[in-house]
């Protein structure tokens, strides 16, 4: 859960874009390129897992009698 929080999808996609651009540049050494490739593959896997897990979690925010905010799962008919 902590790792998931730390993982920012958009930033991962941006990093991936940067890696691909760097690799498409001829001047990168092969050993560096291979390290970046590994990182890129890992990012793609993480992004795909994120996409698979992503779903809407619906909640409802009200107050209890004491005026304390009360957050509970929402049951809205759709």
């Amino acid at each position: 859960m902590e790792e998931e929080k730390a993982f920012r999808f958009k930033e991962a996609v941006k990093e991936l874009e940067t890696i691909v651009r760097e690799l498409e540049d001829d001047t990168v050494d092969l050993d560096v390129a291979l390290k970046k490739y590994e990182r890129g593959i890992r990012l793609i896997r993480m992004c795909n897992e994120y996409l698979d897990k992503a779903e809407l979690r619906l909640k409802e925010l009200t107050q209890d009698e004491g005026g304390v905010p009360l957050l509970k799962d929402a049951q809205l008919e759709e």
Partner: protein
Amino acid sequence: MGNVIFAPFEVHKQGLRECVINMGINSNNTLFPDGFFVEDKEDVDESGLLASVSVSEFLNGLRDLIEEEFPYVAIRGEVSSISIPRSGHAYFILKDPDAQLKAVMFQGARNRSRFFPKEGDEIIVFGRPSLYRPRGDLQVIVDRVLPYGEGRLERLFNELKDRLDREGLFSQGAKRPIPEFPDRVFVITSPTGAAIRDFIKTARGRLVTSDVIVCPTRVQGDGADREVIFAIDLAESMAGPNDVLVITRGGGSREDLWTFNSEALARRIYSCKVPVVSAVGHEIDFTIVDFVSDLRAPTPTAAAQVLFPSREEYEDALIHLGERLTRSVSYKIMERRHAIKDLAHRLRDPKTYLYESRVTLDDLSYRLERRLTTLIAHEKECLKDLDSRLTFGVVNKLSLSKYNLKRLSSNLEALSPLKVLARGYSLVSRHEDGAIVKEASMVRVGERLVIRPAKGHIKCIAEEIVE
């Protein structure tokens, strides 16, 4: 009883009476039975039998009075509750803050009119007031309608909008950025409205990684703005830095959406720490909340589209990036392989270097040889040249000398005394010392002299000297 009936018309009673009298309608008129107009309670027959009229009679009389008194009027008011049934006649209510009046505009009049009001418009109607007896309704039969400036609500709206705009509440600089991939989305709306249904339905089809938290509130009617403000307070107290607020409701009439033109609500949104997306009504509806919010989405559906990216877009992007990643690395590896192959190929036979060196050497020696030959030839040429110049110089000098000598000898010849002698002159010299005798005094008597003619010589002795 009579004056009770007339109570609402108390003010007009005198006018109506005068009107009736002035028009020559007297109490004998069948429309106005005896006792129709009463001065005071005492004039009314206690039994009511003499003075009473039927409802129809009364309304007929009243209608005629109204139509006589107000044959044609212009009335100003705000339009509401417009209804146009299949008949094509338009029914609406004309109102101001204290009163309202029914109005009807028949199809023909409506078709002739260039302008027809919409809900909330402030207008001036022209027509005749009348009583609709089946309902006992007073209504004005409109034959012409004109807009009266902008409607009251419109004016209030514009005044508030201008004021807040001047204060800078709508300035682009004050807009907070809407977070991409927000952690939590607080949706302030009616839990039963169309807006939340549309929003969630749209969100489900997209890439949502946020908690969507509904903050239920009323979205129309008196005090709804305060409820929305309260919901903002509540959401703001829970919101984190990567959260966003959505204030939304579905379409409705201008009055329905009026909650979202509340000044207090606008100021609360402006002061809210959390970015606010507004989505009120349909695309054509603009409210003050839309102007003050950080982002205005035209509809609840659009709000969901703005907040949540398209799932397909990212799935496609990831596939595409993956392909490029693999392709670029494969290409690099292939490139290296080619480079290594090339190196290996060149390394295979050291003789190649030897051969190359030999060729170079050959070439160099050839060039050296050629260079030397050229140099030698050149030197030879130079020598030859010098030689020829030397020879030529010497010969030249010799012939010049010969010529000079010839000339000199010829001169010399001309000067030779022998030539003079040849012409018969002779040289006389002393025998003793050989000196040429140039005058007689050089000679003594008896001295031996030598005379030299052109050929041979004569020895002689001087006999006499004559000076």
